[in-house]
């Protein structure tokens, strides 16, 4: 059967071009790969190759023709001795370069269609799904009934979470700088090498990009790595593997390639380590679909959430804080204690104003609530615990009650997590607000080294108190 040679598109945006020159003439033998013509676009001259073999039976568009539309038949290839009258030549409409070829139109339309379904898809924002009366998540039953409660540091809670999950699942291992022999740069992995051995507790070279990629590759293969970054500042070396490989591969593989990995380590400001060691990345990771982002405050949440993160089949960014490692909290004993990812916790009930924060920001939030109580303002304090997916419903339920909100984070203000909280409240509960949502954040500067400047750069209890009083018009 004769085959039409169509005017090719050379880029996704090309619509027409000039047929500069035929390199074969009618009657010539052509085989696959032979260059048969040259065409010009506004950018370059390109060659047209034959894919099928046969005889160039007819040239439909002559040398030098301008504005030849993509997909116009420009020639016909036939098998030797084949009658070409059945092909495009018989149809005068097809040999007019200006008119798009009818035969070619169908595939063009199909190719253009991908934009259409997106318009019918549900909107990305979820505020509409928040009911008029939102329901707060009840965290009161998270501690197992009757469990013995012990005091434990965040550091010990994280270590126990890893140890318990490594006992439970042979596919779980931990890798990172100084995690094994040195027992952890911040002693979070203390004792793991002794219990689990060098195959499951792996010291890496100081090459974040490489070992993050190795971790993701192992996770794609079905293992469950815990990748420790000495701090999340250093994860910037690895961010391509975290975002482009870990977060996106499930989607790009049509659901085939899950990536069960935890990236964990200290995040945000410690003390006097300056800008390159003090960045809070919560907002960065929170921007990426395909990731879960967890940032616990208390030791029990650190333990319960890390265990959930290790069991989660998705990539989880687990943001810790160096200052919090040594702080003690009540933690239930036993290895069956889990805290669900994606649920906030009302840490202190109150009626007058909602203060919402996460991670070390909770110290400012709770400190402010104490101070406000002295002045007769009853603040409700919510610990988000998970940044993505964000439990905005628990926040909305509180705002519907208090009608006022202050959001607190140590990160930068622009495009910050508190900016997101404020927007989501406005979308879902605008009519409940008696004052604009206020935020207290780290200042919009790289973290300075000098003690006095560092103090100024970070949020504090006084700023939260002032913001709360402002939204209460006090």
């Amino acid at each position: 059967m004769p085959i039409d040679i169509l005017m090719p598109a050379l880029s996704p945006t090309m619509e027409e071009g000039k047929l500069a020159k035929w390199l074969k003439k009618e009657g010539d033998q052509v085989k696959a790969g032979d260059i048969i013509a040259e065409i010009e676009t506004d950018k370059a001259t390109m060659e047209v190759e034959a894919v099928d073999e046969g005889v160039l039976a007819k040239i439909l568009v002559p040398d030098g023709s301008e504005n030849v539309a993509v997909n116009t038949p420009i020639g016909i290839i036939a098998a030797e001795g084949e009658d070409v009258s059945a092909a495009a030549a018989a149809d005068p409409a097809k040999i007019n370069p200006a008119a798009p070829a009818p035969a070619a139109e169908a595939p063009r339309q199909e190719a253009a269609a991908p934009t259409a379904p997106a318009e019918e898809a549900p909107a990305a924002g979820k505020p509409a799904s928040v009911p008029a009366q939102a329901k707060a998540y009840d965290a009161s039953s998270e501690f197992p009934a009757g469990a013995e409660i012990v005091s434990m540091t965040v550091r010990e809670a994280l270590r126990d979470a890893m140890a318990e999950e490594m006992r439970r699942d042979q596919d779980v291992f931990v890798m990172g700088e100084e995690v094994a022999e040195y027992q952890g740069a911040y002693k979070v992995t203390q004792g793991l090498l002794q219990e689990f051995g060098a195959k499951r507790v792996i010291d890496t070279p100081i090459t974040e990009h490489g070992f993050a990629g190795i971790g993701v590759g192992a996770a794609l293969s079905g293992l469950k790595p815990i990748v420790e970054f000495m701090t999340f500042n250093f994860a910037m070396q690895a961010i391509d593997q975290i975002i482009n490989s870990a977060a996106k591969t499930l989607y790009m593989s049509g659901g085939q390639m899950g990536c069960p990995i935890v990236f964990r380590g200290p995040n945000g400001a410690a003390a006097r380590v300056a800008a390159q060691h003090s960045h809070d990345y919560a907002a960065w990771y929170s921007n990426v679909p395909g990731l879960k982002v967890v940032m616990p405050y208390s030791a029990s949440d650190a333990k319960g959430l890390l265990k959930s993160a290790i069991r989660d089949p998705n990539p989880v960014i687990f943001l810790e804080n160096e200052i919090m490692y040594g702080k003690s909290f009540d933690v239930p004993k036993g290895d069956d204690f889990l805290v669900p990812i994606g649920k906030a916790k009302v840490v202190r009930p109150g009626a007058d104003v909602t203060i919402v924060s996460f991670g070390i920001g909770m110290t400012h939030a709770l400190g402010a609530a104490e101070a406000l109580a002295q002045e007769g303002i009853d603040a409700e304090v919510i610990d988000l615990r998970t940044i993505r997916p964000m439990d905005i419903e628990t926040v909305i339920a509180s705002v519907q009650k208090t009608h006022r909100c202050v959001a607190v984070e140590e990160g930068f203000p622009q495009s910050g997590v508190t900016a997101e909280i404020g927007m989501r409240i406005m979308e879902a509960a605008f009519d409940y607000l008696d004052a604009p949502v206020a935020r207290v954040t780290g200042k919009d500067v790289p973290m300075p080294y000098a003690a006095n400047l560092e103090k100024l750069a970070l949020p504090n209890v006084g700023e939260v108190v002032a913001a709360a009083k402002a939204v209460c018009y006090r």
Partner: protein
Amino acid sequence: MAVAARQSKAPAPSKAAAKPAKARSAKEGAGQAAPAPSNVTPFTKDEDLHAYREMLLIRRFEEKAGQMYGMGLIGGFCHLYIGQEAVVIGMQMAAKEGDQVITGYRDHGHMLACGMESRGVMAELTGRRGGYSRGKGGSMHMFSREKNFFGGHGIVGAQVSLGTGLGFANWYRGDNTVSMTYFGDGAANQGQVYESFNMAELWKLPVVFVIENNRYAMGTAVNRASAQTDFSRRGVSFNIPGEQVDGMDVRAVREAGQRAIAHARSGKGPYILEMQTYRYRGHSMSDPAKYRSKDEVQRMREEHDPIEQVRARLIREFKVAEDELKAIDAKVREIVNDAAEFATHDPEPDASELYTDILLEPAQG
């Protein structure tokens, strides 16, 4: 019909820049640095027939993909493997069931070589629901857990760390499989490659690093981007053995692949194979390939074509009749045409797919 690339009337790159590339290609053409044919273990007739059919499938598939790109059925970027077929086919002939393959964005050939269906690959190229990624990945991002093909990655060099991670998992499980991690001469200059080399050798991971040196990183000739153009030596400072291979001769590829895979499988750690190959087409469909001469491409096609080499052997040494080869050609063409037909008429993904496959549901308990 498909489209390839060449000279433009737009300003040509500076002659100073273009010349060394030509000089190198003349002196160090693939095939010349490779072992003489007499040193290569010959294929049996069946092996040659297998290699012929498999390579031809890739070639015809890619020609069809180029044609469909020209028709606007394939969008975005489309990187064809034409000219490099012997690399992945030779390596697959050396591999065992269960070994993994991972590569960059020039991935169609690798998928077909892994046994993935032409229909599913072509339908992904056209962004249809029957594609391997249900239309969400496209040309550069496809996977098959069933066939141990781990992508299809769009970030140059990222697959090297990921492939090392596959090797890590093999080592961790002790399952005696090998990760075959492919990347190009361009990716070979990325930093994470050397981080991965270091850890792969340090931990003796079963990884074969296959560097497909097709002489141009996008439009930049190897000697204009690489201080060390002998890629087999790129692992020297990590004590990783390496060798240069005539990547246009499928027999040489298989033989070197067997050596490298045996090394990795036996617990001795990674191995580097520099496959000296050549891509006939531009970097992507919209590349006019002004950085090389028409003669250079023509010479490679005429003197080193991997498929023609096998075809000539089949006729000359194994006395295979032209008709038998024509029957293979026809069969391959039928598979490719069927794939194109499927990929043209398969529906696009349902709009609801926009919000699926972002996260997996955690198991309960």
